[in-house]
């Protein structure tokens, strides 16, 4: 196969934001995760945990709680507002001020008709959920002290509210507090410190389970208001607590400041006994920092917190052992590319939530670095965070977009670098989800709302609106999350989160065809520069090649499907986020996920089902003559880890952008102090 010069880049100091809270929708199997910077991410648990949507954050929007009501997603935060999100156009649809100061918690009743929020001023406010909006209904009786946590009884008749030093049970009808459960303070020196009930759960048998800042998980009888059982699980806080409400309410998990997740189960303590009780059963230790967000799916414990990683830990009694399903998953990086690469100019564009950085790659001869990479410029974005960015192949144009606006810059590299903002943009370019330049940098494509693609001609003189590509007029469709233009400028491929891929003919400016819908979301698409075949890789790790001219899957793709991919390939737990091609050898397709990059050689046979997928070491040890017989189409290199981007420059050198997890870890604040051995 040969040698590659690799620019190993580690100066993209991307820092994911801490996970603040999460909510799982068991009907749609979607998990919403809110991060500290205000961004909300939607993961599809039906589709290999693919992160299908990201709603960019905003400065000052500190989301404190999330709540699904059917397909609708609500959030509330310390800015005192309740927000409903437009999950198709990925932006807040509207916000409502609750007028109760910072909101700590939000919870909907089981019918999905009412929304309760807990406010700083001590009120629990009930909002009615109407179509398209919410409306304030009333306040429950106000008490001194903030409402930290809320939970509806499944019958919607009562609400349990966690406060400082106590839990109160309200009658949802009358608004009166019916019970007051006093929570013990921590023992010893911190006796004078008030205890905060961080989280509370209300079961249908009127059992209340609470987690508090004294490190206790307590089980109460809500009817009598008596304490049933106390488990001291940590020296620090129990920050989050979740019941598997969609099932039989027999399991509760609690996340602590020490990074552990502890499971309690409602089981009989000895075999053959019928009186069940809550027993502490399992402890998961997958985090280094606070576990501030938890979700309990039918089969797994999902946790996230300060250490920014989302961990899906299957419960081994619910899944088949030793399968892909039972594997622990850690999602550390976004499932989309945050790095843009200008192949001709050797430029890298790093997308941060609040800024973009443009870097020029170094030059070298062999191993010797002649010129080190240097920082070109930084584009600071204001309040709204960046949702997408694009860099043209020549490096001369840069575009990025926030929820509400698009910016386009002209960058010129004469002796000095001059950057000019293109001031007059067509009014159609307003809210876009994805940006993409044509390979000759003459056009900018932007996926806009209503599932349309706006084509804009960019040139020195002006920026002109050309056309809007739509595949079905009038029908409301999911947004495009992937865009890709062919090298010859004739084709544009778009993919949306409904797993549809559309091909447009740019010469005729109309829809050319639609790729047969596959039931997994495409994670990246690319059009081959020579053959004009569309390569799509999906969240379930399948690879397809579709001929745009013949409008059918190619022979290669059919053979691949007929033979099937190796299970080792299918069991990888990070999606392919980028595809490039080798301009010198059209047979080579270069793609990467977080832990490897792979060159697929279409001229070589597929690996047999019992073959070794990672066979580079074997091949290396073989004499050259025997390599041919042993090699197969998948050339996988794992020497680079935690990849953010792998791209092939025009001079055939690879650019590998790494972001080692250790570097991220080292930037986190210190975890809570734990006594370990003799420290």
């Amino acid at each position, binding site marked *: 196969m*040969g040698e590659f010069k*690799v*620019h*190993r*880049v580690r100066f993209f100091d991307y820092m994911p934001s801490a996970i603040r809270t999460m909510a799982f929708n068991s009907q749609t199997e979607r998990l919403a995760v809110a991060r500290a910077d205000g961004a909300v991410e939607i993961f599809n648990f039906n589709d290999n945990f693919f992160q299908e949507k990201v709603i960019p954050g905003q400065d000052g929007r500190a989301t404190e709680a999330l709540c699904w009501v059917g397909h609708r997603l609500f959030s509330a935060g310390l800015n005192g507002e309740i927000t409903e999100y437009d999950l198709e156009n990925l932006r807040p649809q509207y916000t409502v001020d609750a007028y109760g100061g910072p909101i700590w918690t939000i919870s909907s009743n089981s019918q999905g008709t009412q929304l309760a929020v807990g406010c700083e001023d001590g009120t629990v406010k009930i909002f009615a959920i109407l179509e398209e909006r919410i409306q304030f209904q009333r306040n429950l009786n106000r008490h001194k002290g903030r409402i930290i946590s809320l939970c509806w009884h499944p019958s919607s008749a009562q609400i349990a509210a966690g406060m400082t030093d106590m839990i109160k049970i309200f009658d949802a009808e009358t608004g009166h507090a019916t019970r007051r459960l006093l929570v013990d303070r921590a023992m010893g020196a911190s006796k004078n410190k008030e205890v905060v009930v961080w989280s509370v759960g209300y079961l249908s048998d009127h059992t209340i389970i609470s987690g508090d800042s004294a490190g206790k998980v307590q089980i109460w009888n809500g009817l009598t208001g008596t304490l049933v059982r106390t488990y001291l699980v940590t020296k620090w806080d129990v920050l989050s607590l979740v019941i598997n409400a969609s099932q039989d309410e027999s399991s509760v998990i609690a996340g602590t400041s020490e990074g552990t997740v502890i499971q309690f189960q409602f089981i009989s303590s000895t075999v053959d006994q019928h009186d069940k009780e809550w027993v502490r059963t399992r402890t998961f230790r997958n985090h280094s920092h606070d576990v501030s967000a938890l979700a309990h799916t039918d089969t797994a414990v999902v946790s996230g917190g300060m250490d920014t990683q989302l961990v899906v830990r299957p419960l081994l009694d619910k899944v088949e052992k030793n399968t892909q399903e039972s594997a622990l998953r850690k999602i550390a990086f976004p499932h989309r590319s945050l790095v843009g690469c200008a192949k001709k100019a050797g430029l890298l564009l790093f997308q941060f939530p609040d800024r973009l950085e443009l870097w020029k790659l170094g030059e070298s001869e062999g191993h*010797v670095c002649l010129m080190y990479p240097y920082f070109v410029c930084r584009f600071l974005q204001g309040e709204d965070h960046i949702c997408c960015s694009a860099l043209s192949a020549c490096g001369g144009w840069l575009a990025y977009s926030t929820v509400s606006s698009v910016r386009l810059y002209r960058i010129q590299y004469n002796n000095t670098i001059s950057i000019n903002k293109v001031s007059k943009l067509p009014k159609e370019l307003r809210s876009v989800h994805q940006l993409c330049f044509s390979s000759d940098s003459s056009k900018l494509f932007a996926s806009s709302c209503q599932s349309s693609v706006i084509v804009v001609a960019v040139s020195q003189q002006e920026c002109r609106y050309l056309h809007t590509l739509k595949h079905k007029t009038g029908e409301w469709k999911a947004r495009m999350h992937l865009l890709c233009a062919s090298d010859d400028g004739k084709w544009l491929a778009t993919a949306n989160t409904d797993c549809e891929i559309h091909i447009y003919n740019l010469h005729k400016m109309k829809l050319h065809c639609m790729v047969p819908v596959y039931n997994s979301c495409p994670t990246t698409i690319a059009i081959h520069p020579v053959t004009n075949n569309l390569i799509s890789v999906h969240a379930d790790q399948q690879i397809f090649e579709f001929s745009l001219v013949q409008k059918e899957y190619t022979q290669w793709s059919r053979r691949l499907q007929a033979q099937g991919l190796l299970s080792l390939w299918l069991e990888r737990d990070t999606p392919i986020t980028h595809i490039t091609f080798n301009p010198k050898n059209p047979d080579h397709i270069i793609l990467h996920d977080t832990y490897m990059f792979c060159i697929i050689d279409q001229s070589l046979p597929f690996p047999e089902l019992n073959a070794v997928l990672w066979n580079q070491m074997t*091949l290396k040890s073989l004499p050259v003559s025997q390599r041919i017989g042993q090699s197969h189409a998948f050339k996988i290199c794992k020497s680079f880890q935690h990849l953010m981007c792998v791209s092939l420059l025009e001079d055939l050198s690879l650019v590998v952008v790494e972001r080692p997890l250790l570097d991220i870890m080292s930037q986190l604040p210190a975890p809570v102090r734990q006594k370990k051995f003799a420290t």
Partner: protein
Amino acid sequence: MAALYEGYTLCGLVPDQNLSSSGIQGIEEERDRDHVVVTDSTRSVTLYKVSDQKPLGSWTVKQGQKLTCPAVFNSQTNEYVAVTDNKVIRIWKEDDILLDKAFKATVSSDVWKVHCTHGGEPVVLFQRGAVRLLDSLLAAPQQPIEEVLAQEEAIRWSTIIVAETQQFIIITTEQKGEHFLYLQRLNPNSVQRYRLEREEPGLSPLSFSATYRDKHICLLYLYPNGHVYQSVLSVRGLGTEEGVQALPLPRSLLLGLPVGDGQLEAASAMALDEAHVAVVGVPHPSAGGGKDFLCIWNTNFQTLQAGKEMAGKIYGQLWSYSNKVFIPHGKTLSIIPFECPKSSLASALGKLKHTKTEESKTPNSVPSWNNILHGEKAQPSKSAETRRTRTTRKSQSTTNLTTDQVLELIKTAPVEEIQKEVEGFLTRAEFQDLQPSVGQLALTLVSRSLADPAFYSSSTLAQLVHTRCLCHSVCPDLVLLALEKKDYFLCQLCLQFFPDIPEAVTCACLKAFISIPDVDAEKVSLEPDSVKFMENLITRDRAEAGLQNGFSPTSSVVNDRQTRAEDVKKKASAPSQLSCPVGLHKAVLINEILQTPYSDTFLLPHLKDLSSQHVMLFLQYLQFLYLKYSQDAFPQMEGFRSPSLSQIMDWVCLLLDAHFTVLVMTPEAKGLLLNLHRFVKSQVRLVSELGKIEGSLQELRKMKAKESIGQYSIEIIELF
């Protein structure tokens, strides 16, 4: 160690009347390693098959013509190329009989030499320095030839070198007493001129030799004063500037050869590999002033590795092809095969003494290779013992005698007086100047003892040995004298303190020790520490056998579980096996032997002199030691001098090597051999396991090195 083997004659020579030249112009390799073309200085070219020492063909030019350059063989076309009368290039094939009918071409300028590498195209070097490929020259033979060299500059020597794919012609020239070197690259042509550093005025290099290794050309040249210099020329970075400027050529002195009286005249040095140089026409350092020697020197250690006297006159000519040296001498051309294995100091000097803790703590003032090599500045300081003697016995010395006076005294005085005076002398003398005088004292004492059988002063000698200023080479008769006088204590001291006891003497001691009757041995007083060590070893064994009743961890002699059952069967005989086969003091003495440094090649012939009974006894004792050591992770008792396990194993191997056939034939030895076989097996297993661990540890180290990656790096990866 490099070696010269028995040579043989390829052909006779017809040297000049005055024996000034050998009559051979050149020897070139022909089609393979076994064929050479020899060109004599007048008219004929002969092809020889070297292994058969037989001429295969011969060609002669007409009377009146003269070969002016050695014929070369062009392996591309299977043709020979030579030059006659400076200007006529002749090319012929093997089956051409008459040279006159073969192809010839006259060129416009005088040719210096034709060079050809194996598989390469011949290159013609003109006397004025121009270089042409033969083919391009023959295309237009009368083409004008430029002058590269200056006026009065003349070629002295030239050669061709292939560096990777590039051919280089190296020319050395002389101009008004200055020497220059041209490095001419062919295809594309470029030339670089270097100036050789001046040696003493009037000296010009006698011989050159060039080799290519590690991307550099190494030039080796010999001056009449015996200095061999090496200059390293980079092959890369050549041809940037056309060599108008003569760059100074840095050189390093590789060898300073002994030249005897006068200067070298006909001598030659040639690099055989990176560490070995063959030198001819230089006197052998230990054979007087005769210069008729072929020697191989090791340049790393500056040691003479092999030497051979060549009969007849040496002409200072030397060729080497495929591990054979071609050397004309007297009236013959001889071929001498040689071998230059990779040399290490250990192989050159014999086995290194085992470095153990005690060695570093006792200062050893006799210069040892260890110290020299590892640069330990072993600051000689007096051992504790001598310091003690100095303080306690200071009062006894009455008169302060000088060294000479003591020496005089030794020659005549009775034992007691000598003892007293030597003691006094030792306490007085400063350590630095002790060394020469102690040697003199010991020497005179020994020579008197040898001359006068009645005189023997054991304690004085022991005292002298104790100073650690003595070594065997200072006083070679001391150990043998002690043996003769049955002074085993002194023997022990000598074995302990002398770093350079020859293997023959070691063996003599061994023989003497083994053959002492145990009764006699017990009477000898020996060094208390070593006795105590042995006592511990033996008594512990008994104590254990008595103590651990019923449970015997010692029963499995080797960590070999499979043989355990077998061992249990043998348990009945085990106690007798485990008891020490020799007496305590005898064992102590033998231990001393085990710890002396030796080189097995030198020891082996002497070991063969041992009788089979002795060998058996010795082996049994070694087996006993081995068992003791391997039984229960034997704690090497701190502070005691004791043989190491590897020393014991080495000796077992040596003994078996020396006496294997005898032992196999001896019925009593059968059990012993079987046991030893088991030891070896377990050792082999241990070593192989260690090897595995080493492999994994090395991998670990490699992984560690990988870790430091900065923010940005450029790497090359290879995918297969």
